[in-house]
Every structure is written in C-alpha cells, then in structure tokens.
C-alpha cells in the first residue's frame, strides 16, 4: 500500500530472543524477532497483553540485553540506553522537582548544548505540544494528557533518531487520547520523526502507523506486518473518515482475528 521508495534502515533486529530468569524458571519473552525500522517510519506494535511488546521496546532502548541475536542501530550494536533513542513511558516519568521548562531542557542540558540553543529548543517543542505558557508550572499541576505531552516534548528536544513509545496514551481518557493521536501524527509528519509505538488498541495502531506489527502471545513472535496508509490519508484530509472505508474494516478485522486466535 504505502509506496516508500528510498528506505533508509535505522534499526535492525536480527534473530533476537529474550529470556527472563534463570535456567529452569526462565520464561521465553521474545522468540526469533526480525524487524527493520526505517527512517521516517511510524511503526505500531500490536499484540495480546503479556506478549512481550514492552520487552521488545526495552531491548531496542537498551534497557535489557537480548539473550540471543542482536539489535543494531545504524550498523552498531545497541549497548545500553542513549539519547539517540528517546523513550516515552506509559506513565510519564516527569521529574516533579523540576518545572515543565526544566524537564524539557533536561536532555539538551545533559548534552551540554549552548544556553541559547537550549532555550530555543525548549520553546519550539513546548509550542509543538501546545503547552507554551505552562513552562513555569510544576509537572504535578498538569493533567494526565498535558503531562504526557511534556514527556513527548522532553524526548523530542533531543532530536532522537527514533522515539520509542510504550502505550503512551493507555492511561488517558478517550477524548484526550484522540487529541494526542492527532498531535503525535502531526509531529511525526512535520518533523519526519521515526516512531516505534506500542499499543493494544487496534484502531490506534491503524490511525497512526504506516506499518503495523502484530505479535503472538507469549513467547512473542511477529506474526504479520501490515503496510497501511490511513494515517497519511487522515493527515491530508484532516478528518478521520477513512475509518468508514471498506479496506479499513478489512485490515482491522484481519488483525482482530489474529489477536483473538492468540487469546483462545
């Protein structure tokens, strides 16, 4: 469906497996994962709960070392977390002892960027997530959706090569969620960001992704990858009417069938 011509590979996962625990009590969380993330892609990972979606993200982020196989980023093996791979957690891990400004500036400050540049970046991304004017507030004064937007701005402020998101909107109410989906789609489109997004919501995946990865129940394996284009259509038309199309239902049903067959 999507006509991506010049793909530039960013992250390559090769024959990766992940085991938790020691010998007898060990559980296999991920099995033989092969996946390539290209520059500018919006990849959504779907699967029944407990299928190892988060483990996959942790391996890419560098929080967990795969038991076998490897994660390569631009040809180099991932070894621990670094700022090229930004992470947005399900519950925003904003630092309550810092203001919104200080939270967003944290990454650039850690990288010792010049003061004027830090300020510019901060203003740009706070504006990007519609939170200009909240900079002096403390994060605990914000609503759930606003917190998550600060968390997104904080990650983007580092201009990471890829943004890893672990069910970032899972804890938000339906309305806020929809706003956040539009927001992240716009950010992705405008800045040509690469996003790796975990969700358990099929609609969310189809509304955002240009590739949707469906995983099996534990041990997590990739069952099928769907190339979809709804997100571009929504962006161009500015409305969500594509979700009433025949092909949307077809893809959605197919994914639903796969997931349900995994649960039983």
């Amino acid at each position: 469906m999507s006509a991506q011509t010049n793909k530039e590979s960013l992250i390559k996962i090769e024959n990766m497996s992940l085991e938790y625990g020691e010998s007898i009590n060990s559980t296999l969380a991920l099995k033989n994962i092969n996946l390539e993330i290209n520059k500018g892609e919006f990849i959504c990972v779907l699967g029944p709960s407990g299928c190892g979606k988060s483990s996959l993200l942790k391996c890419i982020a560098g929080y967990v070392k795969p038991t076998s196989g490897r994660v390569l980023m631009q040809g180099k093996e991932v070894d621990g977390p670094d700022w090229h791979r930004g992470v947005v957690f399900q519950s925003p891990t904003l630092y309550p002892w810092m203001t919104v400004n200080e939270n967003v500036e944290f990454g650039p400050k850690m990288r010792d960027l010049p003061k004027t540049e830090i300020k510019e970046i901060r203003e740009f991304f706070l504006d990007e997530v519609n939170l200009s004017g909240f900079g002096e507030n403390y994060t605990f004064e914000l609503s759930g959706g606003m917190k998550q937007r600060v968390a997104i701005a904080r990650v983007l402020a580092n201009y990471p090569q890829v943004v890893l998101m672990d069910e970032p909107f899972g804890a938000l109410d339906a309305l806020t969620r929809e706003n956040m989906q539009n927001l992240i789609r716009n950010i992705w489109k405008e800045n040509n960001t690469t996003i790796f997004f975990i969700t358990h919501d099929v609609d969310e995946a189809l509304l955002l992704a240009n590739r949707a990865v469906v995983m099996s129940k534990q041990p997590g394996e990739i069952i099928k990858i769907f190339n979809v284009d709804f997100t571009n259509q929504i962006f161009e038309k500015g409305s969500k009417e594509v979700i009433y199309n025949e092909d949307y239902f077809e893809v959605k049903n197919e994914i639903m069938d796969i997931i349900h067959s995994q649960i039983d």
Partner: protein
Amino acid sequence: MALNKKKNNKQKEKPAANHPKVNRESEKNKKTKTEKALTFITWASIFLTWYIITKLGIFTPTLLPGPARVWMAFLRILENGYNGVPLWLHLGASFKRLFVALFFAIFTAVPLGLLSGYFDKVEAVIDSVVEFYRPLPPLAYYTLLVLWFGIDDTSKQILLFLAGFAPIYIACVSAVRKLNQDFVLSARSLGAAQKDVFFKIVLPASLPEIFTGIRTAFGVAYTTLVSSEMVAATSGIGWMVLDASNFLKSDVIFVGIIIMGITGVIIDAGLRFLERKIIFWKGHV
C-alpha cells in the same frame, strides 16, 4: 527541521490564567479548628490536673512542685542562671554538641547511604557495620568514648554523630532502593551520564526519605544528648536536670524537662518547615 516553522491546525491551549499560585503545602496537614481546640483542651486539662493534685497536697512540694513553683524556678534560672551559669549557656552547650554532631552525620551519612543504595559493593563495606552498632544503646559505647576522648564535648559529639548517622544512612539506602527505576531509565535515555543521574535524579528523588531520616536522627540524637549529659558532663541542660536531682530541686527538674520538650518540638517544627519548602513536590512522585 526549522525551529520557526509555521504550525498548521493547532488549537492553542490557553495558558493558566496568570499562573495561579501553587499551593505547595498539602491541605491534609492543615489542622481544623476542632482539632486545634482538642489539642488545647488536652493541655489545659494536663495543667489543671497537675494544679489540683499539688493543691490537694497529696505529695510534698519537694517531690511534686506546683505550676507556680516551677514557673518561679524558671524565672529564677532565667535571671540568675543555674549554679551561676546562665541558662542560655547550658542550652548553648547542649545545642552545640547536637548541631555539630548532626552536621557531620548528615554530610557523611547522606552520600554514603546513597552510594550504598546505588553500588552494592559500597553497601557490602558499610552496611554490616551500621547494622551491628545501630541496635546498641548509645550509652553502652559512650563509656568507651569517654575513656578515649575525655569528658568534654568531643566524646559527646562523636556519640551523637554515631547515633544520628545510622537513621540517616538507612533512610538513604532505602530511598535509593525504592526509587522509581523509570526515572533513572528515562534520564539515561535523555543522555544523562552516571554522574548526572546520581546528582540530578537519585539525589532529589531521595530527598523526602532523607528528610525523614534526618528528623529521626534529630530525635535519637537529642535523647542521646540528654542521657550522655546525665552520665558525664559539667554543663548542658541534661546535666542541669541531673545536678538538680542530686539536690532534690524538683522544681528545677521540671523546668529542665519542660525546656527539653519545648525545644524538641521547636526543632522538629523547624525541620518540617524546611521539608515543606525544599520538598514542595512531596507526594506528587
């Protein structure tokens, strides 16, 4: 990507109306009028009972002096001092011991405790020693300290240092252990080096527990201070009480105990005030 790019379809969120002042002190801690009245009534009845018992003359005034007598003793000590030494010198001697000891306790126990929580090898070195001496009553090793460092301030300061060190150290270790790991991971993913994670994340995130540890340490050190002054000293509020008991001056004993109680409450209130100012975000983690 251009920083000054024009935004399309963006519904601007309205900034909070001229930034309403944040209420950084939690409402829960505010006492209601009834609760304040109850506390007042409690103290009023304690004083009343005390007054009635002394008025009835059940005990001789030498054993249980009345409020008026204690008040007179207080005024007398305030004016003439105790044994010719002004009251503030006694209090000053005690507080100097207390604050010097706690200053050193805080500045050693906090880094060591955080490091112990952070690096298992540091913990392996320090933890067993702390666990060994912590349950010991401080007065048990005070005798040794007096033998080694003399009866002066040094031995008391070391004693109070040891007494205050353990609670702060233990609070710091547990603070790091209980730390939300996502704080650390997110900081690492934002480009923070090990050192930055420690100073910018671990240290501030541990502050609430560190403060609890410091408050506990103050309590322990204060108790230890008074007992150590009763064992061996020539000045200090604890010594004043002990000396008065040797001469059966029970009104002075009462004055001493009441002063100790009130100063203890004041110190703790000061610490809690600092805590509210510094850790205004407590409970919002």
